[in-house]
C-alpha cells in the first residue's frame, strides 16, 4: 500500500470542499498530479496544492492507497466521502460530510467531526476518535436512505438526529446522544453505550437499538415484551426488550408483523 501524506499549509477562509480527497480519486496519481486536483471554496475552484503540501504517490488502485492528513482540517468538508476502498487517517477535527456515502475501506478521524458525517454510509469502517455532530449516519436532508451498511464507531458523544432513516449496518456510540436517535429507522443496529435524551426510535419500522444508559423520556409507541440475555459489542448483560414503534406501519413476513426492537440494559 502506498501512502500519500497531506499537510495543511493554508486554512481556507470559507470551507474547502475536499470531494477529491479519497483513495478512489487519488488512485494512480503522483503527488504532483494530486496537487493539481480541484477543490471548491465557495463558488471558486482552486487546487488541493494550494491548501496542502503533498508527499508521496498514490497506489495504482484505491485499495492500494492510504492517505494521511495532518494539520487543521476543521474547515474541510467531504474528506473520505464516497470512498470505496483503501485507507484514510485524519489527525484533526473535520467538517461536514466526512465519510458520507462511503462504500468501503477504512476511515479514521483522530478528532471531532461536524454534522452530516457518514451520511448514507453503505460499507467500510469509519472510526471517529472524538465527538460527532448532528445527523451522523443519517439520510441527506430530505432523503429517505440513511446508513445502509458498514461499521461506524464514535468514541465520544453524538448530537441529535443520529441514524435517521438507517436501513442497515452497525453504529456504535460510546458516549451520549441528544434527541431523535434512529428516527424512521428501517433496519440496522445502533449500540448506544451512554444515555439518550428523548424520542429514541420514533417512527421506527424495523431494526434494533441497544441502550446501555438511560433514555430521558421514552417514546409512547414502545411496549415491553420481556427480558433477554445478550452479548452486545463484547458486553454480556440482561436487556428489557421493547417492540415498536407501534404508531408506525410495519411489514409482514410469513403472515407475522415485523416490529423493531429497543433493548434497554437493566
Amino acid at each position, binding site marked *: 500500500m502506498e501512502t500519500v501524506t497531506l499537510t495543511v499549509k493554508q486554512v481556507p477562509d470559507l470551507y474547502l470542499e475536499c470531494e477529491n480527497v479519497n483513495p478512489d480519486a487519488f488512485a494512480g496519481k503522483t503527488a504532483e498530479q494530486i496537487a493539481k486536483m480541484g477543490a471548491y471554496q465557495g*463558488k471558486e475552484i482552486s487546487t488541493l496544492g494550494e491548501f496542502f503540501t503533498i508527499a508521496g504517490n498514490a497506489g495504482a488502485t484505491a485499495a492500494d492507497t492510504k492517505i494521511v492528513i495532518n494539520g487543521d482540517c476543521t474547515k474541510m468538508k467531504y474528506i473520505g466521502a464516497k470512498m470505496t476502498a483503501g485507507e484514510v487517517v485524519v489527525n484533526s477535527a473535520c467538517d461536514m460530510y466526512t465519510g458520507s456515502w462511503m462504500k468501503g475501506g477504512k476511515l479514521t478521524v483522530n478528532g471531532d467531526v461536524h454534522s452530516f458525517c457518514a451520511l448514507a454510509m453503505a460499507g467500510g469502517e469509519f472510526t471517529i476518535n472524538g465527538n460527532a455532530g448532528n445527523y451522523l449516519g443519517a439520510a441527506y436532508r*430530505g432523503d*429517505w436512505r440513511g446508513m445502509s451498511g458498514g461499521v461506524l464507531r464514535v468514541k465520544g458523544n453524538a448530537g441529535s438526529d443520529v441514524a435517521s432513516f438507517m436501513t442497515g449496518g452497525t453504529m456504535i456510540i460510546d458516549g451520549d446522544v441528544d434527541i431523535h436517535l434512529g428516527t424512521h429507522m428501517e433496519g440496522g443496529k445502533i449500540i448506544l453505550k451512554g444515555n439518550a435524551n428523548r424520542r429514541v426510535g420514533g417512527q421506527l419500522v424495523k431494526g434494533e437499538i441497544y441502550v446501555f444508559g438511560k433514555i430521558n423520556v421514552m417514546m409512547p409507541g414502545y411496549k415491553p415484551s420481556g427480558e433477554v440475555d445478550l452479548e452486545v459489542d463484547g458486553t454480556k448483560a440482561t436487556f428489557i426488550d421493547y417492540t415498536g414503534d407501534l404508531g408506525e406501519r410495519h411489514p409482514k413476513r410469513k403472515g407475522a408483523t415485523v416490529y423493531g426492537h429497543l433493548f434497554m440494559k437493566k
Partner: protein
Amino acid sequence: MSEYIIKNGHVFDPVQGIKGDKKDIAVKDGKIVEKVSSSAKVIDAKDKTVMAGALEVHAHVAGPKVNAGRWYRPEDKHFDSHKKPGITRIEGGKSIPTVFKTGYEYARMGFTFAMEAAMPPLYARHVHEEIHDTPIIDEAALPVLGNNWFIMEYLKNNEVENTAAYISWLMRQTKGYGVKVVNPGGTEAWAWGLNCLTIHDPVPYFDITPAEIMTGLMTANEYLGLPHSMHVHQNDLGNPGNYKTTIETLQLAEGVKPKNTFGREQVMHSTHLQFHSYKGTNWGDFESAAKEVMDYVNKQKNITIDTGNVTLDETTTMTADGPFEHHLHGLNHLKWFNVDVELETAAGVVPYIYDPNISVCAKQWCIGLEIALMAKDPMRCFITTDHPNAGPFTRYPRVYSWLMSKKVRDERLNTFKNADKVIGATYLANIDREITLYELAQMTRAGPAKCLGLMKDYGGLKAGMNADIAIYDINPDKFPSDGPAIEKAFGNAAYLFKDGRICVEGGKVVDMGQKKTFWVDAKVPENKQVMHDVREKFLRYYSVNENNYPVPESYAPHQHIITVDATKA
C-alpha cells in the same frame, strides 16, 4: 441584428418536406429568409444535422407544484451543483431542476419552446414568475380546468357559451394558453374521498361525468377557436386495465370538428399515453396495451398524443391528479406532498424510482417506446417524458437513442433482470422500426408546433418563419451506432439559434436570448351572467379578492399574445 448563413448542413424540415438534403439556411433579423447579404456570418454545418428548434408539448417546469418538489427534495440537487465556467448560473436539481438549469438544458438539447402543462389558475402568478426567470426558451402555460366549479356548473346545464366566456376570462386573468384537463371530475371527487376511475363516474355534488366535462370543454374550445385543442390527462392513470377507459375517452373526439385559423387539425390532445395503455388486472399480470390504444389513435385523425416515456431514473412525480399521488404514496411509502386549490384543482407530489430491476418499471419503459414506434403518423405523436413524471426531460437524448436504434434499445431490453417476463408482456422485442431523423423532426418540431397552433412561425425552416434553429453534430450518412454517441450529439447542440441569436455553441450556453411568454387572448361577446358568477364566487368562496387574482403585466414583461376573435362565433 446580425445576418447568418448556415451552410452545407443536412436539413430535416417536415414543413417543406426536406429529408436531409444539403441546403443553406439564411437568417436575418430573427427570421429565416430567402437570402442574406455577403456580410452574413457563415456557420459551417458540413456533416451536421439542421432542424428547427424543438417544441416541448408537455412538461412540468414552472409553478407551485414544481417548486414544492424543489423544496421538499433537497436531495435531488445535492450532487453536481457546482458553478460551471461561463455565463451560466449554478445549475441545481435532476428531476426538478432550477429555472435556470431548465432553460439551459432545453437549449443545449436544441429546444426553443416548452409548454408548462398544468397551471393552477389561483397560483398563475407563481407560474409566470418562474417562466419569466427561465432563460432562452419561449414558454406558455395551460390552466387546469377539468375540476373547476364554474366549468362543472355551466357544463352540467349544457351552457357552452358561458363555459367559453369563462375560459376566455380565465385565460386573460392567468395569461394562459389553452384548456388543460387533469383527471376530469376525479380530482374534485377526491375532495369527497372518492375518484372518477371511468368516464361515467359522476362527480359528487356537481352530478356531472368526466365524459360530459371533456365533451363540453372540446366544444367550448372549438367555439372559441383556440390555437391548441383541449389537452387531457385522462381518468384512471397508471392502473392495470385502464386502456379501455383510454380508448373510450379518445372516442369522445369522434364527431367533434376542429375550428380555428391556426391550421390545427386535432380536437383532443391526449397526454402521457404510456400511463394509460395498461392491460391486466393487477401489477402481477400487468401487460402492454400499446397496440390496442395505438390502433385506435392511428385511425382517428382528429386526436394527437404524446408518449410519456419512462427513462428508468429516480424522479419526482407531480400532478393535479391528487388521488393518484395519494395512491402512489401508499405503494412506495415515500414522502407525499398534497394541496387543494380552492374551487379549481389540487396537486400532489411523490418521489418515484423507476428501477430497471423491477419488471413493472421495465414494462412501462417498453410501453412508452411502443407508443412512439407504433405511431403511423409522426405528425400526431410527440415524444415526452411528462417531465418529471416518467423521467427528467434531460433524458430526451437517451429516449431518442432507444427510438432511433433497435440495437441500443434491444441491449437495454435484453439486460433487464426479468427480461423474459418483460418481453412476454410487451410488444417491443418484435418491433424493428427505427425512427428516422425526418420522423424525429416531425415528432419534436413540426408536429408539436401544429398541435399547439404555432405552425405559422415555429417548427420549420421555411423563409418567413422564426429563426429558431438547432444544429447537431450528426452526419446522417454516418448515423452513430452506439447509445452514448447519439445521446452526446442530441444533448449538446453544435448551435442553437433562438430568434436569430446564437444561444448555444458547442453544447455551451453563450447567450441568454430574449425569452417570451406566449398566451392567448380570446375575445368573446360581453357576458353579464359569467361576470356576475365570477363576482359571486369570489365573494362567497375564494380566499383572495377578485382584484388580487389576475397576473399583472409586470409578471410577464416579454409577452407574445395570440389573439382569437370569437365574438362572431
